[in-house]
């Protein structure tokens, strides 16, 4: 896979056209901005984290490229119901998946649908798109 067309796997296209968890979350504990002024990608994330540190619910809104939108949508899919620590671990795995050629994560079935991003490393300028919302989430969880 070195054609960019392969980057746009069905699952990515699907989530970019019809993102899940899209919209504002009235009841949230965290409101996060994820901006990449360079591309014009700009999202707001809403997380509802409970006292036990479990991410109960999450939504996002905003605009950006297909990669960043699908990545945000799939990220929320993946972290809802998880603990902060589990989300943080997933962040580390996802980062490796999109940045490193032949990462263990690209073989790891537990990555689920996130595996769709396993070819992003071949397009360095798009890595930022894939990881934008993840970084924003991490920044907040990390300082939690």
């Amino acid at each position, binding site marked *: 896979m070195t054609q*960019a*067309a392969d980057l746009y796997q069905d699952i990515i296209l699907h989530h970019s056209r019809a993102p899940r968890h899209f919209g504002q979350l009235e009841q949230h504990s965290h409101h996060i901005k994820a901006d990449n002024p*360079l591309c*014009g990608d700009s999202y707001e994330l809403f997380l509802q984290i409970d006292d036990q540190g479990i991410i109960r619910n999450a939504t996002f809104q905003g605009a950006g490229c*297909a990669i960043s939108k699908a990545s945000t949508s799939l990220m929320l899919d993946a972290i809802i119901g998880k603990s902060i620590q589990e989300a943080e671990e997933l962040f580390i795995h996802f980062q490796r998946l999109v940045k490193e050629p032949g990462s263990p994560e690209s073989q790891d079935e537990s990555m689920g649908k996130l595996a769709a991003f396993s070819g992003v490393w071949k*397009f360095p*300028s*798009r890595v930022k798109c894939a990881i934008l919302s993840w970084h924003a989430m991490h920044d907040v969880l990390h300082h939690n």
Partner: protein
Amino acid sequence: MNTTLPAKHVFPALQQKIKGHNLIWLDSASTTLKPQPVIDAVYQYYAQCSANVHRSVHTPGEEATAAYEGSRETARQFLHAKSTTEIIFTAGTTDGINLLATSLSRGMLQAGDAILITQLEHHANIVPWQMLRDHHGIELRVAPISDKGDIDLEAFQAMLTPNVKLVAFSALSNAIGTVLPIKEMIQMAHRIGAWTLIDAAQAVATMPMDVQELDCDFLVCSGHKMFGPTGIGILYGRETLLEKLPPARTGGDMIKSVTFEKTTFNDLPAKFEAGTPNIAGAIGLAAAINFLATVPFHDIQKHESALVASAQEKLAEIPGLRFIGTPRQQMAIVSFLIDNVHPHDAGSLFDDDGIAIRAGHHCAQPLMQHFQVPATIRLSFSLYNEENDIIKVVDSMKRIIEVFA
């Protein structure tokens, strides 16, 4: 399209294959490809002469100095400056504007003075003036543009109050291709006694710039956007003004004498060139100017105008396509958006067909804010582009739209 245009094989970069396709370079507004004579001139300097300038008595040093100062004369002729004392070599347009801003801040501008720019400037012609605003109390005014992307000359006129000391604007917008009425704007500025700075970064490869005819006070451009090397540019300044301006950077070569107590600065243009200059860059830039001189600007413009017109016509047929910027006079550049296709995604997929376009804000975020878009797809044309490039772009675009349909 036109027989005076150089053959494409003069640009070795066009020989390369991108993902199996011949490269189609539609990103000249970012940087132009380099013709062989420029590449060779840089090579020759490093391989043969490769000495430092100005302070040697040996033959390689005299040759390097002659080549470097000869490049200054070539640049003078290119911009039609009166004298080589008015040609300062810089590292590029951004560097030239910063140099000028620093120098102006050292006593030439006072708190309460104003600088007037326009809404379609590149960040390079915005942020350095914001620094003067924030650190020196200079007011920064922005002349608005219309929905089509033209400068609003009435508003511009109204902003030209007596405390405006400098008016700085692009000759050609790098984001949407607007050609500004710079001669008129310079005259308007001069009527209130303001100095004028032309950001000619985009213009120099497309339109002749005659500083005497324009009667501008300063002009900046970059080598790499006019078929020349990176790391080199020109700051033109009217001699009477440069004489008054204090140096911005200091060190070797720009001094006459140094004691720890007191330093006497050198004459123009050395006063503004501190340290070992980009000798290879200047020599390559002169080669680029000589290359440009082989193609009449009239032919370049005819060629690029035809490409712009053709692109506008063919792209207009694509459903969901919207042009960003439709100014009265548009040159070399076409910017647009497509429903449901983010510019960055389009850019990646164009690349699959060997087509290099630009997706982004083109370092003109305030202009993007004006159009309320985060980014555009930009095609920029140069003398090595051809009608066929546009046909390929349209084909590719249709394929891309399908991906996201």
